[in-house]
């Protein structure tokens, strides 16, 4: 029996984990891995803690819970989310502690009336968690082992015909804006479950590009934006397809990810169904409107089943099979009350509740997000956008989006194949079907990239810089200006890169001293202008430039609100750290020595910069410029009881800077 090397890519989503495979045995084979081919589109990424049996069930096993309450259903994604950056360091640390060391899990809630808090401590305090004997980290390990079991089992079936066994090479897609801790944990979980390190680990953006290339969807020199509509938010990435490969612009787009996604569509459907049921007859009680009528509301412990129905209905409505006799009256959604209330939802009703009919609601929010991005000057070269993610399959949504976007001269595409491509395709449980292809685009792209050894380069979409000062004229005139750290269009190495403070001639912001307890206000900023634009062009005539030392300086006066508004509008200038307001402490770095707040008596050099990871995600920072501070000494005073005292001489390079960077994109 021969060994077939099969490339598997895992794309962990909020509700399901999409697993695609690719292998080449002379011909290229691609497809999906699911548990039950008849019922599933992807493997549910949920775990259920059976309190009675004190054991965990995973994925499809959760369906066998029977009539037990579903309050202990947890999403694997929600557990891993504990590793994502949090509002502050303390919360982040605490969340990670919960992930690795504690045995608390968030309870299942629907609808979103009771939202999960980002702070696990708070969730525990508010009794929104339950306890099980394992840690979230252990449960994730168990889940990935379960996934491995599903993969092995299914591949055995797949390869039975060719009398081969599978040698699995796993790969991994991670969501945009993921923290290293999150990615590393995903890698660890996959390594543990599959007993081998993931070969390709790529962001959703790169994976989508890989899919675009593989599926031949993009023409040479095409500039496109891919909008990814996930379960919880919508985000975007700008892509250029050159002859030699694909360049993906940094993901830190000017339009922040918005909290609109598949969940909002679920909510809209849920509200629609609940609204229709409010006047229903309750057994043994007078009718609605009469005295004594009861409108029995939902029991939270059964809501998981309701959500599942909504998700299934949403998917079915987008299927070509919809018109067959199975769903000719609409798609059923059941709600648990004193009776099982069997409602059906038709395409027309669905369009109504999602807001397509009345041009409002969730659909409208999605269109607004896309429109806002496309009308920015930076995107005038974009003639085509791709929309991907589960909600693409939502019936009527694409048509609705096209109605608004295509008049802008932009073609709206998806990664879906034409329905005609599915004619005659038999569902063998491995084929990616017409209503699933948008869902599988990232994982399939990743699997194919792994199979082909494809790499995708990242090019920055934005220019990053810092606001500095230059003394001009007789020395009385100080110009605040924007100094570029890294230009847009710069190719980012796969491992990422760091860009920091500038030429020696620039003053202000980078040094500090003489009795100060914090630095002067300073800002790290981004713009879609390049250094070349600043130097050579006056594309935006309303913007102020100054000439100094033979250099064209872009004036950024943070006290001048009018100017700032202009800059924001004309060149998309945004502040990544602190506040744009000079008076705000958030724009000033504070000094620490051995973890204690100090005051600096002698000047110390400070380095400002951006760290950009392999996916183009930029993070502003402020740190000691150790090279320039060398072996020099400074004098510090400790802050104790609100007073500085205890003067000490220490090495300049040992001074730490804490810079409040709260407004960065997350």
């Amino acid at each position, binding site marked *: 029996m021969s060994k077939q090397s099969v490339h598997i890519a895992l794309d962990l989503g909020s509700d399901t984990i999409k697993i695609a495979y690719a292998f080449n045995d002379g011909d290229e084979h691609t497809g999906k891995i699911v548990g*039950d081919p*008849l*019922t599933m589109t992807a493997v549910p990424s949920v775990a259920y803690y059976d309190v009675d049996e004190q054991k965990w069930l995973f994925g499809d096993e959760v*369906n*066998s*819970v*029977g*009539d037990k*309450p579903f309050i202990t259903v947890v999403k694997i994604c929600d557990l891993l989310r504990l590793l994502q950056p949090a509002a502050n360091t303390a919360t982040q640390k605490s969340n990670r502690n919960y992930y690795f060391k504690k045995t608390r899990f968030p*309870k299942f809630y629907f609808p979103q*009336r*009771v939202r999960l808090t980002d702070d696990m401590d708070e969730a525990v305090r*508010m*009794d*929104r968690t339950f306890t099980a004997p394992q840690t979230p980290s252990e449960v994730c390990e168990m889940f990935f082992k379960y996934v491995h079991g599903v993969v092995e089992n299914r591949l055995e079936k797949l390869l039975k015909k060719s009398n081969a066994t599978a040698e699995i090479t796993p790969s991994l897609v991670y969501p945009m804006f993921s923290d290293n801790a999150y990615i590393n944990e995903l890698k660890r979980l996959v390594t543990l479950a599959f007993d081998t390190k993931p070969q390709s680990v790529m962001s959703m953006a790169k994976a989508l590009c890989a899919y675009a290339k593989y599926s031949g969807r993009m023409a040479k020199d095409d500039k496109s934006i891919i909008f990814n509509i996930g379960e919880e938010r919508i985000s975007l990435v700008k892509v250029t397809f050159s002859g030699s490969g694909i360049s993906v612009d940094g993901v830190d787009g000017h339009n922040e990810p918005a909290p609109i996604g598949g969940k909002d569509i679920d909510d809209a459907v849920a509200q629609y169904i609940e609204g229709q*049921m409010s*006047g*229903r*007859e*309750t*057994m*043994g*009680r007078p*009718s*609605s409107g009469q005295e004594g009528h*009861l409108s*029995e*509301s*939902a*029991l*939270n*412990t*059964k809501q998981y*089943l309701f959500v*599942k*129905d909504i998700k*299934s209905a949403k998917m*079915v409505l987008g299927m070509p*099979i919809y018109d*067959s*006799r*199975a*769903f*000719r*009256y609409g*798609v*059923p*959604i*059941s*709600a*648990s*009350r*004193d*009776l*099982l*209330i*069997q*409602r*059906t939802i038709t395409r027309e009703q669905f369009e109504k509740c999602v807001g397509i009919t009345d041009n409002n609601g969730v659909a409208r929010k999605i269109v607004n997000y896309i429109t806002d991005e496309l009308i920015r000057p930076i995107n005038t070269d974009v003639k085509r956008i791709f929309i991907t993610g589960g909600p693409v399959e939502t019936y009527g949504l694409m048509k609705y989006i096209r109605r608004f976007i295509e008049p802008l001269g932009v073609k709206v595409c998806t990664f879906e194949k034409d329905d005609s491509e599915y004619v005659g395709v038999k*569902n063998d449980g491995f084929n990616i079907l017409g209503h699933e292809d948008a869902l599988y685009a990232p994982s399939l792209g990743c699997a194919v990239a792994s199979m082909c050894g494809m790499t995708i380069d990242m090019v920055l979409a934005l220019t990053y810089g810092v606001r500095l000062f230059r003394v001009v004229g007789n020395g009385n005139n100080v110009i605040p200006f924007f100094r570029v750290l890294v230009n847009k269009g710069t190719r980012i190495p796969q491992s990422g890169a760091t860009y920091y403070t500038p030429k020696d001639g620039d003053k202000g912001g980078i040094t500090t001293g003489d009795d100060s307890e914090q630095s002067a206000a300073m800002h790290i900023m981004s713009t879609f202008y390049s250094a070349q634009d600043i130097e050579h062009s006056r594309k935006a005539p309303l913007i102020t430039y100054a000439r100094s030392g033979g250099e064209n300086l872009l004036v950024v006066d943070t006290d001048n609100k009018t100017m700032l508004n202009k800059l924001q509008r004309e060149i998309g200038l945004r502040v990544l750290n602190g506040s744009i307001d000079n008076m705000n402490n958030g724009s000033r770095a504070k000094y620490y020595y051995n973890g204690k707040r100090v005051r600096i008596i002698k000047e110390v050099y400070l380095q400002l910069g951006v760290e950009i990871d392999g996916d183009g995600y930029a993070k502003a920072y402020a740190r000691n410029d150790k090279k320039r501070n060398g072996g020099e000494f400074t004098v510090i005073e400790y802050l104790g009881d609100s007073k500085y005292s205890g003067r000490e001489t220490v090495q300049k390079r040992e001074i730490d800077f804490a810079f409040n960077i709260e407004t960065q994109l997350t």
Partner: protein
Amino acid sequence: MDENYKLTFTDTAFSADIQRSNLQYKKKFTKQVAEAQQSVEALDSHDDFHELLIDCSHYKRRKGKAEYGIGVDADIHGTGGSVILSHQQSAAEKFLRDLRGFGLLADVVGSGKTFEAGVILSELAVRGKMKSLIVVTPDQVLNSWVDVLENKFGMGKDVLYKVQKSDGEYPTLQDVLAAVGVSKQGKFIRPKRPIIVDVDIFAQWRYSPDFLVDVVVVDEAHHFSEDAGKYAGAMRMLSEMMQTKKRAGATYCLLLTATPHSGNLENMFRLWYFVRCKGGNPSDFDEKDDSERTTQYIEEKQYYKDTVCYGATNITDFIRRVKYSVVMERYLDELGSYLRETGKVSDFNDKSPYDRAQYIDDFLNAAKYGGKKVSTDKITGLTVTLKDDVLKRISDAYHNGVLRSIMIRQPNKLSKRKSVHNYFFYPMSSIPETVSITGLNEKKVTVDFSHVAEGGQPVVKVGSEELSLIDYVKNLRGNLSVEQAYSHVLNSILNKLAASDPQTKSIHTKSGYITYYADRLRNTHGAVAKQTYFLPVLQSESVKDSKFQTAVRILKQHKDKRVLVFFDYNLGKSERIYDEVCDALLRDPELKDRIIVGDDAADVHAVEREFNSEKRSDAILIVKDAKYTEGANLQESSIIINYQVTYDPLAMDQRIGRIFRLGQKNDVTVYSLADMSKLEGFALAYFAEIGLLSGNTGDATILAGSNSDQMVALRCNACGRVVLMSKEAYDEKRKKKDALVCRAETQCIDAYGNGTEMCEITVYDFKCDSCGTVLTRSVSDGYMCFSNVENGERGRMCNSGEKGDRSIYCRKICAISHCKRFNKGGHMYGKCPALKRFKDVSNVSDVELMRICAMCDNEDCWDKCKIAGLPKEQIIGEAGEGGRCSDCDYAGCSPKPYALEFNDKWEADCPMPGCSTRRNHGKLRPVVARTFATFISELWKFDHDGGEGFCQNLGEQAEIVTDVRRILERDDGEKE
């Protein structure tokens, strides 16, 4: 009349004893009074009913000659014999003399009301007042009546003309009169033969104004209180008959029931009205609003409600109101002192009368006040405390005021007794050899568990002496009652055991369980407490084994007796153990030949016959199906083992009712085995406290119903907690802000800001008024399909959710799962992927099933059986569409998947095969029933609070019912 003799109606009005004492001590016994008394006695001698004509000692068990009516016949009545018991004689005397042959005969269960009726009928016959007779009775007891009247009271074989259903056909009154012949007297037509008729048929008769029957007997007359359904129709028919009877001056009518109400006093009104108004106005018994009824009806109802029932609608509320009234009228000074002393005066004044009840209870329970001597009992010489006096007055108001105003109901004096043995198994992960506890009289003693493993009992070592737990309690209790002492000891032992067992929390999940058990035992009647056994068992060996050993020991101990073994039939498949137990018993050489199996397949009557046959006098009937718990005559046995205790009090009562009934020759013994960590343990302790199994009050239905009737179930939709409260308490709380807000968990607070308002949930069951089929709801899962109940695969009933749609139907996939084509032997067996998915995943969604179905290539599957399409249409379809499950020959369910079309009164035609095919089929009607059972099972499931709420709530309910029990038990009888 001299004003001195004027009686006023106060709370004492119903106590003959008090009235007499008023006369005796306050009014002078004058010459005029003596003369009046003589005149009364002289008048009595002219009363035809002032004494019985037939000497009751002359009735004996002999067959008599066939003749019309029950006449005096030397052969029948002869001399000697003790067929008629003294209480039966006295009931007959009172019925004739006091009620003048018209009213309710309501002695308790098993007192032999049929015999009382026999005596009354004999007396009417010898007076020539019974030229015609009709007995209206439920079908299941019709033959027993025939036997009693024809054989035991000498009516003669085949004299009664039996009117029963035949092939679903209902004979009309005209059919019957044609068959028996009529005699005409003036404008009246009397049937020539006495008639006994099934109540179902009687309810369908159309009244003829000339039709006269001198004497009417109605058995199980409490059903006639129902304001809708077939019994409402029967009541109308009866009322019509009474109009003719009144015209003819023959008003004799015997209404028999042991349970005039089931805790709901409001429901008894129709009977009350019928009796009070000699049949009332026939139109008042139609189904309509009260506003459309006669003034007489409306006024009587007002009087009944406000004066007789003190404004209460149920027995618990009645007790509360009378208690309040008695205390306020008679002991206001004492109450005032108590409130001042405890600083509760302003609290009390601020409260509504409803909320003051708790203060009154606290006042009565305060030793200084409730225990205060207020008089001495003239007969026993015992001290009467203030609390005793209050309870006695409540009891009088109930027994003499409510009940005896329309009925003959004597204090229960059943000759047979019940002996109740309760075994509580306490599972542990390890049992210590001994524990040291602070026992009675604060003395340290050692409890030795070393013999428990071999099936022995715990032993208490007192010095060198070794005593069983109960002997220790009995011997060393000092001033404490057995119950108090046992409660104390059990509390100490449980605390020690719990502390010694590291697994306690995982085994006994309801926090507060120790206090719960101790409290229940403290209030349990001493006789039952003395036969309470506490047995720690190793969980590894399982309670199951210990129960089995105990049951075997009991069965062998009663080696020559018939024994009934019952289980809990409400449990899911996984917990049903009767097959396992039966198989194990069949493997025991000593027992195997004694076993008879009563399962769903067996014919109940055949099993009854075999069990009661003389050659099977040592039979053990393993009851595997709930149908044996109702209606089966198994009184040849006097021993019951409740191998599992069900939480439904009515179901438990039904079990006991199999043997504790007329015809029982022996004292009855009831063994109950329960696991203390499970619901059955808590239920058994509760039943023990309220005296459900042991009580000889004959009012088990009232006890069982006291927690059910007029109750409202509320549920927190955030945390799922269920709370039960009386409707009145609910109405009170609704008026107050926040009173119904659940804050049991933080999630309840978060969900809506400041807690989740608990919502009323429907707890209606729907019962067929003909075949008794019940459509039941569970609080979390709703209404379950009643098709194929026995196989445990019950689907949920569905509805479209459209406004105004009152049709509910069986879920399509559930119907297909019962389809013969898909079951073993069917040609589609194993071929339906949707069915497979449903069997694997019971909560699979319809959309998923439809997808599977749509993707399935199986061409053998009929289009009409596809899951595709709206489930309702596929089951019941549109008229003329055909091919729907409810018409399909392959549908293996019984009844077939069916839509129940409820009308505006929430009534639907019963779909059960026996009912639906009949010309006058039964109707499913809403009943508020099993609420309590639903409540405790739901309460049990809620464990977010560690079970604390369960123990507390159930404890509170037990105390409420215990109050009722005390009142029921206090019946001293009518004072003359």
